[in-house]
């Protein structure tokens, strides 16, 4: 699995951080998403797909490899 996040369109909702704090964080200065682990373990797949679905800006993409 590969996780990407488009910082240009991120709406700083914090949804991804709330759902998968091991993989996502927010920049202190503007709340924009930061990916902590671009290749997270498979056990997080379901939570990551949910994060992708509830991300309001469409910034988060999960690609199955």
């Amino acid at each position, binding site marked *: 699995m590969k996780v990407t996040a488009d910082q240009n369109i991120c709406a700083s*909702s*914090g949804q991804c951080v*709330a759902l998968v704090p091991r993989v996502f964080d927010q920049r*202190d200065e503007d709340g924009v998403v930061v990916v902590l682990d671009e290749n997270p373990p498979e056990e997080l797949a379901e939570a990551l797909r*949910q994060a992708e*679905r509830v991300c*309001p*800006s469409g910034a988060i993409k999960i690609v199955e490899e």
Partner: protein
Amino acid sequence: MTDATTIAATATPQYPMSRDGRCPFAPPPETMALAAERPLSRVRIWDGSTPWLITGYDAVRTLFSDPRVSVDDHQPGFPHWNEMMRASVDHRPKSVFTTDGAEHIRYRRILSPALTMKRVEALAPVAQRITDEHLDAILAGPQPADLIEGFALPIPSLVISELLGVPYEDHAFFQQHATMGVDRNATSDALAEGATELSKYLVRLLETRMAEPADDMVSDLGKRVKNGELSVREATQLGTGMLIAGHETTANMVGLGIVALLAEPDKIAERTAVFRGDDDAAIANAVEELLRYLSIIHTGQRRVALEDIEIGGATIRAGDGIIIDLAPANWDATVFPEPEVLDLARPARQHMAFGFGPHQCVGQQLARAEMVIAFRTLFRRIPTLKLAVDVDQIPFKNDRLAYGVYELPVTW
């Protein structure tokens, strides 16, 4: 006047629609009837115009995310909430609520640092203390107690005041003016006066914090004014927006949520049990389901089409007004089976109660934290809580932009 025009005018339903008093938690039956037929329909609003009403979950989600759908209330065809909002459009500076694209992102990222998960977690002990203090007072006072005046209304306003840096002694003034600002039928004069008073107050607070910065949002805004990033007017507008958006909405969700949980006496124990348990994920999900079930913003998110948009078998033309209705989307049975059932264990996080797309509620994590703390603390400390009157005796806020209850008398 028996010609086709009259017939067409009669056939286009008036919006907003009325709820059925016997089902106070359900969206208006007429709205649900439209939603059952198609995901979007024409409705008539106060000024006689006929914008699109979007009711289907997928259409709502898609249009919230579509860059051809604008929040710019200066665009011709924009379906204003009321006459006063249209009349005052040129007097309101641009803000996070009325800009699109890069301009909107700039405003939004000025607000978002104060509302990140980290900052919300840091505010949680403050919210917990405020919640406990209010429950102490209620438990020490007479029964029945009103949970709106004593609990649901003061807590969010104190938390948002804390976040902004508004001193405690100014709290009553703030509550009064913020509440006036969201009255659906407020006169132009009353609204203008309330807004002016709030703006004046925030300008003074901004000046104070620019001279002596503290660790709060107004100080943050003050720094941006100093370095030329924001005008005083813009900073004030952002501060006012935070207050209004973060105050009565959360208060209504807490109040209405409590009514929903207590509405059926034989189900109270079962419905409130989750808040007494230790499963944080289950508590979080219960709050999501309450958000889905109640979606308190019940007069529609207002937008306008900048280009022609094909959706749900219809064409929204450039210049057409668009009203995105959250409640029917959250009661769309294709996404939430048996939507009329309050099921605190169902997966509900994909609800539209905070909107969607780039304008989705910027304060949603704070709202969630406040709700978790409010419900958990209330039902743990008062496990025998019940309504002091029947549900049909409770006054519901049918006349406000955000739905809720005016009074919530309880005993225990």
